[in-house]
């Protein structure tokens, strides 16, 4: 394949993902400059490695995986990994602990700003899986590909992430 058509097809696939990749990068890095570096590096890496991308497989998951791996090896990413072990996924059933505030009240008193803060406060591994699921609306399979984890882990981690988000929201509502 000559270089030009290859770049063309890369561009056709990668350009539509730009905004959402940036949003994801900003949530991971938590600041604009670093998010821009992440996205730029992701696009450069993806373009370089595009020949290794298998046509027919999930391009979006491939791009997010590159972005995430880039983040994990960045300074901020390494720090985040230090604070929370990324692989200590427990049994999902163990964390279904929705005691306290009933769901309906939780929702009534939550607002967007509060949810934003709660997302920022979440450990990276919960934040990223919630974003992939709720914001990017990825399937479990896509999330599994992106995060390079089994589908079972996707389910348990998602469950823990949702529980953690609810806990954070409850705290915020209590403190308000």
């Amino acid at each position, binding site marked *: 394949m000559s*270089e030009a058509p290859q770049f*063309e097809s890369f561009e056709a696939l990668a350009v539509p993902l*730009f905004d959402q990749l940036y949003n994801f990068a900003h949530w991971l890095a938590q600041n604009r400059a670093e998010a821009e570096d992440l996205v730029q590096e992701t*696009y450069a890496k993806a373009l370089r490695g595009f020949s290794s991308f298998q046509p027919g497989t999930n391009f979006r998951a491939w791009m997010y995986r590159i972005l995430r791996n880039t983040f994990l090896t960045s300074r901020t990413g390494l720090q985040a990994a230090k604070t929370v072990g990324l692989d200590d996924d427990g049994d999902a059933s163990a964390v279904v602990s929705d005691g306290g505030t009933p769901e309906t009240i939780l929702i009534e008193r939550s*607002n*967007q700003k509060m949810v934003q803060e709660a997302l920022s406060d979440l450990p990276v591994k919960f934040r990223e899986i919630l974003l992939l699921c709720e*914001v990017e609306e990825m399937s479990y399979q896509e999330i599994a590909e992106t995060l390079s984890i089994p589908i079972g882990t996707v389910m348990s981690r998602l*469950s823990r992430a949702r529980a953690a*988000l609810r806990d954070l929201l409850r705290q915020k509502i209590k403190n308000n």
Partner: protein
Amino acid sequence: MACEQWSAKLDTYLDGELSADETRSFDAHVRSCAGCAADALACVQLRNLVRTAGRSFTPSPDFRMRVLSPKRKRKPLFAWALASVAGVILIAVSLSFVGQQRARRAQIFGELADLHIAALASTNPVDVVSSDRHTVKPWFEGRIPFSFNLPELQNTDFSLVGGRISYLEQIPGAQLIYRLRKHQISVFIFPDRDVPTSLFGGARERTGFSQETWSEHGLRYFIVGDTGADDITRLSNLLKRAQKQ
């Protein structure tokens, strides 16, 4: 199945990841159980909040430009296309420019031919009637804002009939009429800056008239006559030589 068992699957259900059978059962249960329906609704609302809150950041236009249209990367994709588009436009523009130049040149030659014919058809073809160049040249002084030399015609078969003021596109210039055998030839002289000089070159025949033009010392000379091109060239050489005196 008890509600606790359903609620354990609520997220998976809302994620659309239950099997088709389970999804159908869940749908039926939610329709019949107010408590589970309320939980599901609350869950959906929270998800919507997360979805909205999660879409907080948009790339700046600058950054988008930097990543998506770097010149270097664009090259294989767009540079050639751009270059060829630019090329086509350039060619089109130059062709139309050349076309315009041609049209304008034809127009000027046409006007000069008209002036020549009009002068010859007039009852007074010339305002200063003299075969003496030393009479004709001073007559133009004060009438046109430039000066020129007239050739010595002794030992040639040309003779000077006279001169008149002529106007080309409202610009005053000199028109000299020469006679060669039975033919009359007009020589027009205009200030160069007022006539598009790059348009002209060489002798040519058009509409039955031979025409020649050149530029010298800031003056544009045109010769129009119904003689052969050779005669026109001889006259032009005489005039050119005269300017060097």
